[in-house]
């Protein structure tokens, strides 16, 4: 058999394809949320679904995130498989009660009599003045709560496989996307496949330092690893993909081997997922492993809008590489790659307003 060129898709199209294939396969799947059926179709991620599946299965909602989440939960308990879409993760703060007090607990507190096969899609915003209320990565709040699964695919391949896995999962899954990843491309098989709960990916092999990059920080970490290679440092970049359940074993094994663990979160550090990863590894490895730890994430501030401030709010390939260098070569002089070389292609492309 001939082996054709792999098909390359954008993140947004892979995401759309996953939902499309699942809706085709299973009539109990439906998609709803503000604007899923308009001409912009959530940046294109729900494009065509209305035409294919009709308004019963693809529909917008009132601006009522709290109740709409309850509706999704009820529909899920009654046997449907809702995909509930929010254009920003920040708005999940309006439905924390339903997500945490009902969705996460339903199966348990009702003695296993019901299950909640619900996918909650939400996007993280970044740059072009998104600001304090349109930029938050709140996965740390969700991974904290037993009963919720959380996933943050960082590339087109994984977003398709994770979405299919999330839809098929019998539990509530918080599905975290990133606006700046939407146009990034990778090889995406045409057939349905899953990247299931607990799967992670070792993106680059290396011996000097383990770098864990969460959500789009996986991409930034890969770029940082390239920069580091130029100065003779090899980094093992791990994309956890699923944040809950988390494949801590892969991270632990790598950190044991490299002796250095740098976790880059796409959110705040204090008591977030970066803390969990460091703590879990520190606890499991014990002092004899001699692992050195560091974390990077959002600055401990709300996100400012001015580009001159926002630039300093996020880790980027340059600051990640510099931090890794300092961990690996503490005796040597500080090294910071040039700003130009540290840019990511997808960051350069993005232009506002949204």
């Amino acid at each position, binding site marked *: 058999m001939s082996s054709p060129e792999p098909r390359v898709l954008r993140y947004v199209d892979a995401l759309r394809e996953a939902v499309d294939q699942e809706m085709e396969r299973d009539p109990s799947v439906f998609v709803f949320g503000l604007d899923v059926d308009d001409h912009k179709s959530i940046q294109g991620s729900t494009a065509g679904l209305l035409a294919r599946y009709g308004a019963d299965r693809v529909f917008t909602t009132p601006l009522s995130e709290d109740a709409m989440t309850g*509706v999704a939960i009820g529909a899920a308990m009654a046997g449907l498989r809702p995909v509930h879409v929010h254009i920003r993760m920040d708005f999940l703060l309006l439905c924390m009660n339903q997500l945490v007090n009902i969705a996460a607990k339903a199966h348990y507190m*009702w*003695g296993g*009599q019901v299950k909640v096969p619900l996918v909650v899609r939400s996007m993280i915003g970044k740059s072009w003045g998104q600001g304090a209320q349109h930029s938050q990565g709140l996965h740390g709040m969700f991974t904290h709560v037993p009963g919720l699964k959380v996933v943050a695919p960082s590339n087109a391949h994984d977003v398709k496989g994770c979405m299919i896995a999330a839809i098929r999962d019998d539990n509530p899954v918080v599905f975290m996307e990133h606006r700046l990843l939407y146009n990034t491309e990778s090889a995406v098989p045409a057939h349905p496949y899953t990247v299931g709960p607990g799967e992670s990916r070792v993106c680059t092999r290396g011996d000097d330092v383990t770098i864990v990059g969460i959500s789009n920080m996986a991409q930034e970490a890969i770029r940082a690893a390239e920069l580091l290679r130029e100065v003779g440092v090899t980094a093992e970049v791990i994309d956890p993909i699923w944040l809950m359940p988390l494949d801590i074993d892969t991270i632990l094994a790598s950190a044991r081997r490299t002796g250095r663990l740098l976790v880059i979160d796409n959110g705040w550090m204090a008591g977030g997922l970066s803390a969990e990863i460091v703590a879990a590894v520190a606890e499991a490895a014990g002092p004899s492993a001699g692992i050195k730890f560091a974390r990077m994430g959002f600055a401990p501030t709300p996100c400012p809008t001015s580009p001159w401030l926002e630039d300093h709010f996020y880790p980027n390939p340059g600051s990640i590489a510099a931090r890794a260098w300092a961990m690996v070569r503490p005796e040597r002089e500080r090294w910071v790659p040039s700003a130009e070389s540290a840019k990511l292609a997808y960051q350069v492309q993005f232009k506002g307003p949204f």
Partner: protein
Amino acid sequence: MSVNGNIVEDEAHRLYRALRRIRRVEEVIAEIYSSDKIKSPVHLAIGQEHVSVSVCDCLEDGDWVGGSYRSHAMYLAKGGSLPGLMAEMYGKDTGCCRGKGGSMHIIDVAAGVMGSSAVVGSQVPVAAGYALAAKRAGEGRVVAVFLGDGATEEGCFYETLNFAALHSLPVLFVCENNGYAIHEPLAKRRARPGGICAVAEALGVPATRVDDGDLFRIRDAATSFVTRMRQGGGPALIEAVVYRWREHVGPNEDYDGGYRPLSEALPWMEADPVARVGALLDADVRRKVNEEVEAEITEAVRFAEESPVPRPEELYANVFA
């Protein structure tokens, strides 16, 4: 079949059994409570049972009900397992939630009880979600969700009503307005205490208020709403004015608390729906029902007491499906 007013006797028989059963189950729970065998915050519906009974009387097996922490009546009226409820109160492995829910979170999926939730108002949108699924299935099923007057002050109540009306969902909102949220009277919480139905109507949900505790009026309203609903007529709301006889949580009365006088309760007690419906029956028939009910409860208590406690490893079961 003899007729008393409009009510055919075997109906009265059925309704009385349901009422009496709920009343006695809760009274027995209250009695057991002082033994500390039931370590669960109990919110008794004594005095309000007729709302659940009348609404569930016009529901079918395939229909769903959901409600709040004060849901023993709803659960039993819809056919939830009594031994399962009792064992749940005792925290036993045979409880309807296997000891993970207690009095405030009860469920019986087989009977169409979709679960009760202890965060006020939180089951209201969930019920609309069931109704969305029911509408999609197109089999004429309906959902009834029971909520207190306090729950109508939560944002999700309004949000849900609007959505239910927008999508013509087959969901009946049953507001049991007992005039208090814990110890706070409606007038300290709602600018227009009498405006609950007006709010529903403004949101597109037809509403009826029954202010005298009459079981048959409530049932008539429910019947006509539910009939309409099964034919795609969309949601409706019933506001049933009732009175809570016992304290908000716990087995006792609390007329000495100072927030409400016994005199406020007395007219309601005099018009007790359990007694009123019971009076429609011959004394012999009534006595027989009472005996059957007592026997059933005794058996349920025995079941709960003798049931095994959950094994420690059960703690970790059912976090994920």
